[in-house]
C-alpha cells in the first residue's frame, strides 16, 4: 500500500480547457474582486471619514457644527468631572472636561500641551462623554483626541458642547523629554 500522499496528485477529473478561456475567467474574477473591494473602501471611507481639526478650527467654522469630526486638544485638569445620570432609564457614566486649543504647528508636543492647558486665554471647548468608564489617562495636560459632534446647547449662541463618542488619550509624560533637577537625594533614597 502506498504512503499517504504528501500533497494531492494532479487532478484528472476534467480536461484542461484552452488557456484563453481560463485567462478570461481569471480576468473577470480579478475585476469583480477589485470592484467589490473598491466599493467597500469607498463606502467605508464615506462612512468613517472625519476631519481631524484643532479646537480653534472647530469653533470658528460653522460647517463643523453637527458634523462628526475628530478634534485634538489639551485637557484642563481642573475641569474634569465624573458623575452618573439616568438616561432613558439607564444609569450612565458622564465624563465632562474642557480641552484647550493646541496650535497645529509645534516642534515639541509636550511643551505645546503644557502651554495650551495653562494658558487662560486659550480657546477651549467643553466635552461630554456618555457611557464610558473614566479613562486612567484623563489628566491635566494630556492630549485628548476626540471623535464626536459639536452641538450648540441652549439654542443659537448657547455654550458649545462637544459630544464625544470616542476618546483617545495620550499621557503627557510620553510626549516630551523631561530632565531631572539637581536637588540632593533624600536620605535613604
Amino acid at each position, binding site marked *: 500500500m502506498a*504512503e499517504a500522499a504528501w500533497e*494531492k496528485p494532479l487532478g484528472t477529473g476534467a480536461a*484542461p480547457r484552452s488557456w484563453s478561456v481560463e485567462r478570461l475567467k481569471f480576468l473577470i474574477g480579478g475585476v469583480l474582486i477589485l470592484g467589490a473591494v473598491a466599493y467597500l473602501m469607498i463606502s467605508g471611507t464615506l462612512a468613517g*471619514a472625519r476631519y481631524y481639526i484643532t479646537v480653534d478650527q472647530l469653533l470658528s467654522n460653522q460647517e463643523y457644527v453637527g458634523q462628526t469630526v475628530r478634534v485634538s486638544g489639551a485637557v484642563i485638569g481642573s475641569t474634569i468631572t465624573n458623575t*452618573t445620570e439616568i438616561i432613558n432609564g439607564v444609569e450612565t457614566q458622564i465624563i465632562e472636561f474642557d480641552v484647550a486649543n493646541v496650535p497645529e504647528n509645534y516642534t515639541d508636543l509636550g511643551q505645546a500641551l503644557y502651554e495650551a492647558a495653562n494658558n487662560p486665554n486659550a480657546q477651549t471647548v467643553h466635552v461630554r462623554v456618555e457611557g464610558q*468608564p473614566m479613562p486612567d489617562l484623563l489628566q491635566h495636560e494630556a492630549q485628548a483626541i476626540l*471623535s464626536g459632534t459639536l452641538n450648540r446647547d441652549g439654542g443659537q449662541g448657547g455654550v458649545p458642547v462637544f459630544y464625544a463618542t470616542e476618546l483617545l488619550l495620550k499621557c503627557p509624560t510620553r510626549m516630551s523629554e523631561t530632565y531631572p533637577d539637581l536637588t540632593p537625594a533624600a536620605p535613604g533614597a
Partner: protein
Amino acid sequence: MLAEIGIATLLLAFVAALYATVAALYGARTGSERLVISARNAALTTFPLLLTACVALVAALLSGRYDIAYVWTVSNPQTPTFYRITALWGSQSGSLLFWSLMLSGYSCGAILFNWKSDRRLMPYVIAFTMVTLAFFIGLKVFLENPFDRYWAVNGELVKSTFIPQGAEAIPYENLANSAQGLNPLLRHFGMIIHPPMLYLGFTGFMIPFAFAMAALASGDLSTNWIRATRRWTLVAWLFLALGLLLGGRWAYDVLGWGGYWGWDPVENAAFLPWLVGTAFLHSVLIQEKRGMLKVWNMFLVIGTFSAMIFGTFATRSGLIASVHSFARSPIGFPMFVFWSCMTLVSVVLILWRRNRGDLKDERAFANILSRESLFVLNNIIFMMLVVAIFWGSFGAPVLSELFGGTRITLGTEYFMTVTPPLFAALYILMGVAPLTAWGVTSLPRLGRALLIPVVLTLITVVLFALMGMSSPGALFAYAIVTLAGYVALYEIYRGVRTRARKEATRTMGLYANALIELFARNRRRYGGYVVHLGITVIGIGVIGSTLFQQQTQQTLSIGETLSIGGYQLRYNGLTQALAEDERQMIIADVTLLRDGNELSVLRPRTDYYLLSDNTTMPMTIAGAYSTLENDFYVLLIGWEEQTDTTATFKVYINPLINLVWWGGLILMFGTVIAAYPARETVRASVVAPAKNKVGARA
C-alpha cells in the same frame, strides 16, 4: 563604567556590521573566500557585542544608575526588580537596542545554520542583514543613545553621550529623587512579553528578505532561498502572531474598555506585516510545488520586510496619533529614508532579474478551480486587506493633509465596513482550498470532498439557532468559520483513516499511532491544518465577543445586587491597601452568582501610582471570571469617598472571548509542528563551495 561599556560595545557593533556589509559585498564581487569569511566573523561578533550592551543597560537599571538618562526615565527607587529588567524595552532607545539584539541574533543564527548549505547566497545574506543592523545601531549611536548621561556643566544639567568640556559627573544617588519610573500602563504581564514577541516577529522577517535579495543578487534563483528560509519565516510569523495576541490581551486587561482590538494605527502597523507574511507563506508553496509566482513571491517578501520597517517607522516617528505611539523623535526621517532605499533597491533587483528572464514561471495556470488558483485568490484577498487597512490607517490621513490641507482620519466604522467581507472570503478559501488538487479539480470531485464538512457545518448552525441565536449575520459568520475548521479536521481524519487502513485490526491505539505518524511524516501540511483550526477558534471567539457583548452600569450599596445575562453581582464592600511599590489600592469586594449559586469572589480595583512630580496616576484593574463560555468582566468606576457605602460598577459579559486566546495557543502548537524539522528532510549540509570562489556572478 556601565555606560562606557555600553557605548564602546555599541560603537564596535556598528563598525563590525558596517565592515561585514562591505567585506561581504566586495568578497562576493571579487570571489574572495577569505573576505567573505572575514565578513561572516565580523557579523557573528555583533551578537555578543550587542548582548554586552544590553547586559550593561540591565545592570545599570538594576543598580539604579540614575545618571544614565534612560535609567532615570524608566525606573525609580520604588520600581520592583522584575520591572527594572523589563524596562530594557520600556522606552524608545532601550527598545531599539533590544530590537537590534534580536536582529543580530536572527542574522547570526541564519549565518551559522545556513553557512554550508547555502554558501552561494551567504555573502549577500550577510550584506543585507548587516546593513540593516548597522542602520539600527547607527540610530542609537548617533541619535538615541541609551547610554547618554547627565552631566553638570557650570551648574546646568546637560545630557550627552560623551563628557562635555568642563563637565562634572553627578552622583547618581542625587538623581534618584526625581527619577520617573516605568509608565504604570506597562506594568502588566502581557506588556512584559508583548514587545519581545513583536520584535522577534518583526526582526525575524529580515531573514527571508535577506535570502530573497541574496537570490536575486547572486543569480541562484532556484528554490534554495525558499527552503532555506521556510522555518525562519514560520518562526517570525508565529512570534508576530503571539505579539499581536498578547497586545490584545494587554488592552483587554489594562485599558478597561472590554475590548482587545481598536483598529488603532499602531496596532494596524503590526498587523500589516503579519498579513503580508501569511500571504507569502501560502504563495511560496506554489513556487516550491509548481515553479510559479516567482516574481510575486519576491514582491511579497519585500512587502513583508517593507511593512515591518514601515511599522517601526510609523510607531516611532510621530507620523500618526495613537495611544501606543512613541514621541516624535529624530529617528523618523532617517528611518523613512532607509525604508525607501531598501524598498527601491529590492524592487530594482527584481525588475532587473525579471527583464533578464530569470524569473520566468515554469507553468501557467491551467484552471481556475485548482489549488494554485485558490492560493492566488487567497493572496489577492490578503493583499486587499493590507491595502484597505493601510489606506484607513495611513493613506487617507497623510494624503488628505498633503493634498487637501486638512487631515481626514477614518474611524472604526471604516474598518468594520471593509474588513469583515474580506475576512469572510479568507475563511471560505480556508475551507475550500485544502480540498482542491494541484493543476485542476473538477466541481463534482470538490463537491464530494466538501459534503461531510458542509453537513457538519449545517448541523452546527442549526444547533446554534436552536440555542437561541437568531441573527442571520451571526449564523452566516459562524457557518463559514466553522466550515474552515471542519475541513481541517476532516482532512486530518482522512489522513489517519488512510494510514489505519494499512493494518488488519483497528483499535484506538492504532488510530492514535496513525495520527502521530501522519503528523510526523507530513508536519508542514498537518501543522498547517492545526494552524487553520487555531484561526477557526479565534474566529469563533471574535464573532461571539463582537456581536454578543452585553454591558451595564450600576451604583450599588453594600449588599445590593445587579443582574445581567443570567448572572448576579453582589457588592460586599470597599477596602484600601498599600502595595509594596507604594501603590495605593482601592479594592471592591464583589460576589458573582448564577442562579443563586456563588461562583466566585472578584476584586476589581483602582491603583494609584505615585509619580515623580508627586501627582498620582490611576490605573483601573478589572475583576474577571473566565470560562470557555464567556468572561464576566467588572470594573470599579466610582465610589462614595466619605462613607465607602456605595460603589459604581461597569460590567461586561464577553461571550466566547477566551477562545481568542485558546485559538492563539492552538495556532502556536500548529506552527511549531509545521516548523519542526523532520529527520528525513534535513538537507545535506555538505554542499561544497566553489574553489576559492563565492557568490558567482550571474
